[in-house]
């Protein structure tokens, strides 16, 4: 069984098909890099996989269940374009809130542990609105990993991260893959993504132009997939 399976997904905005018959699979423990130009449909696809949006046709299965099932959502972590934490709450309050929503046994303890993992324990009681951009991004990473999800959906995870946040995220993603987590990430940063990816999918105008294993050739020359299968 695939950890993430996208089967014949279409998505229309009005009459415009943003996604056309998308078929993808990510085996358990794999890292699927979704690449493509701006407007190719990467974010739309990730939002459908995450259950934020419904496909016009087709279906998505995560660990065999629908993305909107409570049991599925408990096993999914998502990092989108926003940091998804509240500016008017402290770092500890934010993480404790999400720990409670995910039903963790000891929410405060889990929050404190993740603040330590991401180097934010000294500012745990500070309001997020007073944080630097890098600190906010690390808090967003902590939020996504807090409930130990089996599947991670990451939309442009490296974009706008500072060096420290990139290092934290890369370390956590490597550790996650080592523990059998499945990662699906959309990205423009091919080098960082392909270093982690076991599989690659190239989206082109809402269609899958290539889907296959990530080869050493691709890692050595990140532009190769675009050159072979893209629009040039």
């Amino acid at each position, binding site marked *: 069984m695939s950890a993430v399976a996208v089967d014949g997904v279409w998505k229309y905005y009005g009459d415009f098909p943003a996604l056309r018959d998308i078929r993808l699979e990510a085996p358990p423990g794999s890292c699927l890099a979704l690449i493509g130009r701006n407007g190719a449909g990467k974010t739309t696809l990730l939002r459908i996989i*995450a259950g*934020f*949006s419904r496909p016009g046709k087709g279906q998505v299965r995560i660990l065999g269940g629908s993305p*909107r099932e409570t049991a599925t959502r408990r096993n999914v972590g998502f990092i989108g374009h926003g940091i998804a934490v509240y500016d008017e709450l402290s770092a500890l309050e934010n993480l404790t809130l*999400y720990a409670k*929503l995910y*039903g963790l046994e000891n929410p405060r303890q889990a929050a404190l542990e993740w603040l330590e993992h991401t180097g934010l324990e000294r500012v745990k009681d500070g309001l997020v609105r007073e944080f630097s951009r890098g600190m906010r991004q690390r808090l967003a990473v902590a939020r996504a990993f807090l409930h130990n999800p089996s599947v991670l959906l990451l939309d442009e995870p490296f974009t706008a991260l500072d060096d420290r946040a990139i290092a934290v995220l890369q370390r956590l993603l490597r550790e996650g893959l080592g523990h059998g987590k499945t990662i699906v990430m959309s990205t423009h940063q091919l080098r960082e993504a392909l270093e982690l990816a076991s599989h690659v999918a190239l989206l082109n105008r809402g269609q899958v132009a290539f889907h296959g294993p990530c080869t050493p050739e691709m890692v050595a020359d990140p532009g190769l997939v675009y050159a072979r299968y893209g629009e040039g």
Partner: protein
Amino acid sequence: MGFARQVFVIAAKDLRAEIRTKEAINASAAFALVILLLFSFAFDLDPDTNREIASGLLWLVFAFAGTLLLNRSFVRELPNDCLDALVAAPIPSSALFLGKSLANYVLLLAIEFLSLIVFGIFYNVRWTSQFAQLMLVLALGTWALTIMGTIFSALTVNIRLREVMLPILIYPFLVPALMSAIQLTLDLMAGKPIGPEKVAWLQMLLGFDVIYTAVTVFLVENVLVG
């Protein structure tokens, strides 16, 4: 975590955020007080007339001030894309919705109490004579405002003109609830209890609350997941 606890966690989060920023409650309270003061200065009415207009004036102030407050309910989730994280969390959409509604309900009741105190002073109307029944009507009418305002706040959250759209959308739906609340409050402000001739209005208000709570709870998943 049980459903009630999920509702409480969301409500506590919204209340804590609002108490820290005071964005919605300040705007809503200021609006309610300004309208009440302006009316009291604009019309120099005798106490009997004051009692007669009290009910309509108060519920219109509650409805308008409430829209300002309720509009913020889901807008609060827009910065940093927090709504995505809430929708992704393993709680039913109905728990998210009812949690937000509960927080709005508490805030709106606070505004209404403040308005009643100001109203009592400036209009010289003793509104406490049927206190328990007035609280019942206030509780039911405020829930009607809250439940409709919260669902339409979710519906309009991604619309650019949401501040305009929310009142346009909710007031037509609220007519039966507002009419009931106004009719019931009319006698209470005059110091009379709710009589048998007004029971139908009470039933309508109660029915509105039950029906629209059920409908909104049923629909909210479709509203949040497009």
